[in-house]
């Protein structure tokens, strides 16, 4: 019978395998499905020169990344003059570099890259630019401005900032108001930025104090587990900011299981279920701060404009901007109808 020969290696091997799975499991923020925006394309709609756009993103194992892919594909389909070459997503840096090199060798006209890790993919971005292929860097920024022609992404600091301001305004008349934070994966840069923005906003409200923070993992399971502990630790508080609507499903479940409703909750990202809960107004969830997956559709617009040498309609420039950061709007009961179509599943 085959038996394990190295018991010693076993736990380490298991650790390595599982760590890989963890990374694959949770590199993004949320969940979605529907390509949402039907807004006006950034560049004009008139048919132009044929453009082949290469798209390389991480594995869509999470709703938000799924929505990113769908947004990119459906926007590309809208243009007769655009051909989209899409690689299979991977969270492995080496694999993603290989995929991008393939696209470079295929001589696509423009590259749109959402790196699994922006810093690690900088070199291949530089390589593409040197090969004369302009790069649109989506969401996770490269280390060097030389590695991309245009950056478009969300505002993680702004998410925290807007969440903090919203909560601060709600609590401004309350003495010694207590706020807690359910963060996302702590080893992601974006989580740190969201927390930094949140703390910065709260400084404007001297009566509000953040009393606890726990990090979950962008999953429902971790949201439920961490939130139930937080609820046990804090017998009373006034507001909760949860970084991510996906783990928010678990957090809301924990809140319901604990039978608590003595505070308001603000979510993050803008999932459909969160927006529906805000609209129904029957839970503690009163608002969510957007991190729109529609940025992928905008990236296709910009890539097309780049390939055709156009500027952006409505702007005076002849070229597209070098950087574009989306606004993290706060969606609450007042404006949820407007944003509902952008909610991702």
């Amino acid at each position: 019978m085959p038996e394990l020969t190295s018991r010693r290696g076993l736990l380490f091997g298991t650790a390595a395998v599982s760590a890989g799975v963890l990374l694959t499991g949770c590199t993004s923020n949320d969940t979605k499905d529907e390509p949402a925006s039907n807004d006006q394309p950034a560049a004009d709609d008139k048919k132009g020169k044929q453009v082949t756009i290469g798209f390389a993103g991480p594995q869509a194992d999470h709703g938000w990344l799924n929505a990113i892919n769908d947004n990119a594909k459906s926007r590309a389909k809208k243009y007769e003059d655009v051909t989209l070459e899409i690689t299979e997503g991977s969270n492995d840096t080496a694999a993603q570099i290989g995929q991008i090199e393939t696209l470079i060798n295929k001589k696509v006209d423009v590259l749109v890259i959402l790196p699994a890790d922006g810093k690690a993919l900088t070199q291949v971005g530089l390589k593409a630019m040197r090969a004369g292929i302009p790069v649109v860097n989506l969401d996770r920024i490269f280390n060097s401005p030389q590695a991309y022609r245009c950056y478009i992404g969300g505002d993680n600091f702004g998410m925290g900032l807007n969440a903090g301001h919203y909560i601060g305004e709600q609590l401004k008349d309350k003495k010694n108001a207590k706020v807690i934070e359910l963060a996302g994966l702590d080893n992601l840069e974006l989580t740190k930025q969201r927390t930094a923005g949140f703390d910065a906003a709260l400084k404007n409200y001297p009566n509000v104090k953040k009393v606890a923070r726990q990090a979950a993992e962008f999953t429902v399971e971790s949201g439920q587990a961490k939130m139930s502990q937080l609820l046990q630790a804090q017998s009373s508080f006034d507001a909760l900011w949860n970084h991510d609507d996906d783990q928010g499903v678990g957090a809301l479940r924990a809140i319901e299981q604990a039978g608590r409703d003595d505070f308001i909750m603000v979510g993050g990202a803008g999932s459909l279920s969160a927006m529906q809960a805000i609209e129904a107004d029957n839970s503690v969830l009163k608002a969510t701060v957007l991190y729109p997956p529609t940025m992928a559709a905008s990236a296709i617009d910009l890539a097309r404009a780049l390939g055709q040498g156009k500027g952006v309609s409505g702007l005076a420039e002849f070229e597209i901007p070098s950087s574009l950061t989306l606004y993290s709007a706060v969606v609450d009961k007042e404006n949820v109808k407007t944003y509902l179509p952008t909610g991702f599943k």
Partner: protein
Amino acid sequence: MTQPVSPPRDDTPKLSSQADPSPWRAVVARADVRTLSLLGVLAALILIGGITKPDEFLDTRNLQLVLTQASVIGVVTVGMTFVITSGGIDLSVGAIVALASVWATTVATQDFGFVGVLFTAVLVGVGCGLVNGVLIAYGAMVPFIATLAMLASARGLALQITDGNTQVVTIDGILDLGERDSYILGIPPLVLMFAVVTIIGWLVLNRTTFGRRTVAVGGNAEATRLAGIDVRRQRLYLYLLSGLCCGIAAFMLIILSGSGQNTNGNLYELDAIAAAIIGGTLLSGGRGTIVGSVLGVLIFTTITNIFALNNLQSDVQQIAKGAIIVAAVLVQRRTANTT
């Protein structure tokens, strides 16, 4: 680990202590030095929790919370204990939990109801266990590799089924089991399920032929085969059993989180292996203890709880978890040498 190969029969410390005319002394003197030291660790943790956060920690609600959070991984660990006792390993438990939970919640969204969800979760768990078992027992694959393959493919399948989405369950009968109203004498239904699985697991491992064979296969598979026991069939059953536990755990996780997601059961394989090892089950097989495994799970859950109550961050929690695994195994080696 140079572990003496134990003979194929039921002469593990636990079993022989049961045969001892003065069981209490034997219990204290031998196998249960480990159990007692684990209880000591747990008591120390409870003391720390009680001192640092007396109001929140020593609260009935918190006790219910800790036990509930231990339940899902606890059930997985019971299955894992059997597999490790037989000298095998199951790396696929977390992935099976994920696959079973998303499959079951896919059924849920199609209105098959409570029984449909439970049945599907268990069936998927057993099915995956069957594949593991056949590959290992009859395909002569190393358990590490076979279950590694299952880990990868079950996660992939779970991702494919959900398309990355969270599948929210809306069946009241299931969700109700996670609510406070359904606590029985103050005990959450999930904790009762965990207790039932634990008791059955303990009885099977310590009081049945199946249990003795499991220990024997882990101690010396060749001698067991020569003794006329069908080692391959035994191995098949063990991976089936682990899959079954994963299916039950998936159903419990659906109750707990109200949803199925492809990220469910993340790193359960590590937590379950770690809990079994610090509980005193030998990674090389031949010795297993359900009580130790459950104490291991409770220790980990209690640490997480104390850290969260004191608002310590996840990095500190992970470092402490690592330190406890090392300390527990070192203590075990000492006790193993001295008895």
